[in-house]
């Protein structure tokens, strides 16, 4: 469901700047119980991503040994390894902690990249209209015509898997929706009186666009950034699960891939459940935050 964003944030965000808007946004989200809970979960994920490698008992590929000096293969959760080990003798907990960093890295970079790209494209397209708009929108139509997962699989298989390539592909996938939504928003904003006033005062087109209009679409951009982090994490997990992720890093998706291939669904639940639960919890926490924020942005959603 994509709600119609017809209303900019009440009160306007004219002079707050990017960081001010962000701080204001967070304050408002915390007012909703689900939003506060989602933010709390997200904070835990961020902390784990930052300090995960420091607190993890082993390296992501390190082979754990039993007391007898043997390789600890498929050991259930217990004293040797808190969450058990994989068939290669790696520690599941350590992989999970390292994987959090990879997930957030992909999610955040691709979300920021795609939102900056999508916002700029949407601003220019919506504000200038005419031939520019027509060309940009047809280009967007083409981008929407490309099925992401199959496309990414082909590019990765031809060019070779790597984390930067995954981030690039995810970014190229995520900007499309943002640019369409921002464009629609700009179309309504540019007919508002404050834009006429700015023009009458002699402001240049670019000044009107970036000083007067852009701050008003920022709340919407933040919403799509949050949705983008979620999308980025999911897509990275999907690609890695299919075996098309960077083979040199451990991510939740690649853990699931290894577990799936090794038949751990039959024999080693402790290897399958943690990465899947981490992924689901992350996605749900972003969902709760965006849901609270969306209700704020779009009063119509609150009524119905």
């Amino acid at each position, binding site marked *: 469901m994509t709600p119609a964003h017809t209303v900019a944030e009440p009160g306007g965000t004219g002079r707050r700047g990017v960081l001010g808007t962000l701080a204001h946004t967070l304050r408002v989200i915390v007012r909703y119980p689900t939003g506060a809970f989602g933010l709390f979960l997200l904070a835990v994920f961020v902390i784990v991503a930052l300090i995960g490698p420091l607190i993890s008992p082993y390296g992501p590929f390190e082979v754990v040994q039993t007391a007898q000096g043997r390789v600890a293969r498929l050991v259930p959760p217990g004293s040797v390894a808190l969450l058990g080990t994989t068939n290669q003798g790696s520690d599941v907990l350590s992989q999970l902690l390292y994987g959090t960093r990879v997930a957030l890295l992909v999610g955040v970079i691709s979300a920021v990249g795609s939102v900056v790209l999508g916002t700029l494209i949407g601003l220019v397209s919506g504000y200038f209209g005419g031939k520019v708009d027509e060309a940009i929108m047809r280009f967007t139509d083409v981008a929407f015509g490309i099925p992401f997962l*199959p496309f990414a699989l082909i590019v990765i298989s031809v060019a070779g898997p790597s984390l930067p390539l995954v981030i690039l592909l995810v970014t190229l996938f995520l900007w499309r929706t943002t640019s369409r939504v921002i464009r629609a928003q700009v179309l309504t904003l540019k007919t508002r009186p404050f834009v006429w006033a700015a023009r009458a005062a002699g402001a240049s087109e670019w000044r009107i666009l970036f000083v007067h209009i852009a701050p008003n679409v920022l709340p919407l951009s933040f919403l799509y950034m949050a949705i983008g982090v979620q999308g980025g994490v999911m897509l990275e997990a999907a690609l890695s699960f299919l075996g098309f992720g960077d083979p040199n890093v451990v991510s939740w998706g690649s853990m699931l891939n290894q577990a799936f291939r090794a038949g751990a*669904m039959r024999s080693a639940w402790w290897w399958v459940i943690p990465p899947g639960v981490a992924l689901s919890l992350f996605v749900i926490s972003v969902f709760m935050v965006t849901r609270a924020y969306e209700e704020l942005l779009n009063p119509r959603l609150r009524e119905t």
Partner: protein
Amino acid sequence: MNSLHWYLLRRLVLLLFVTVAVLTILFVMFKLLPGNPLSVFIDSNFSEEMIRRQKQLWGLDAPLWLQYVRYMWNMLTFSFGTSFFQMTPVRDIVVEKLLHTAAMIVPAVVLSVVLGALLGSWLGWRRGSRREGAVVISLLALRSVPSFFVGIIVLMVFSYNLGWFPPGGMVSIGGQGDSFLETIFSVDFLHHLILPCLVLMTREITSPALLLRSTMLEVKGSDFLDILRAKGLPERRIVMHATRNALLPLVTDVAVMMGFLFQGQVLLEIIFAWPGVGRELVTALNDLDYPVAQACFFVMALIILVFNFVADVLYAFIDPRVTLS
């Protein structure tokens, strides 16, 4: 030419334009990216002469523009060449896999829409109650759990632990019928279908349910319902009348859903070892069987484009209140 005709024509031109653009991107990708498909096929033992002949056979010695024209023609006429490994026409492979994918998607979409519509009309009618709020939130939360993890959990519980369902595949070994229809109308096939179908439904039921809920809210205030009420119809019958009027927007939603699922089910096909077009794409890429991979990609892209086109057209035709601008 009235506005409807113009609208259709514009949509059709756009469909062609996007299809050609997507095909061009695919062509450029294979030409530009490092890693030469030819190197997969050609052994270091090949002599210069053999390599030259192979290139000639595939038309790789022609100038680039001619290669592009030939490629376009081949794709648009669905002549995808021969698989590197299976040595059968790619078209036959793709058609077979598409049917398999459809055999999983169509039942899931039909069930999701029917059950989702019922649930949605109930939600719309009971709007504001505490239970309604709880159901909406759990639907949304359920949709955000990655469906491939749901698939893994479902397999672990119902197949590996309880043993109620087979651990993947479309039919048991030797269970293949003489024809496709015979296969999909067998009990064995249904037994294999249930789990992947349920997993797809947990995701796909949300959109029709929420859509019907919100249109139901609009319909609920209509005058004709008051008339029905004045006639003394029971509440249950009135809900049915209201639902029928709220169904219109659902039609386009179904078209978009179908198109999307043909590419969205790749992960589920892998998890349930379902021999569909998505799994074929992954297998072809792992085998570096580029003709098959290329065809699978093109067919998936085309299906999305066509279904979106159908959705736009239906949208214009079905609801006379829609203005085309």
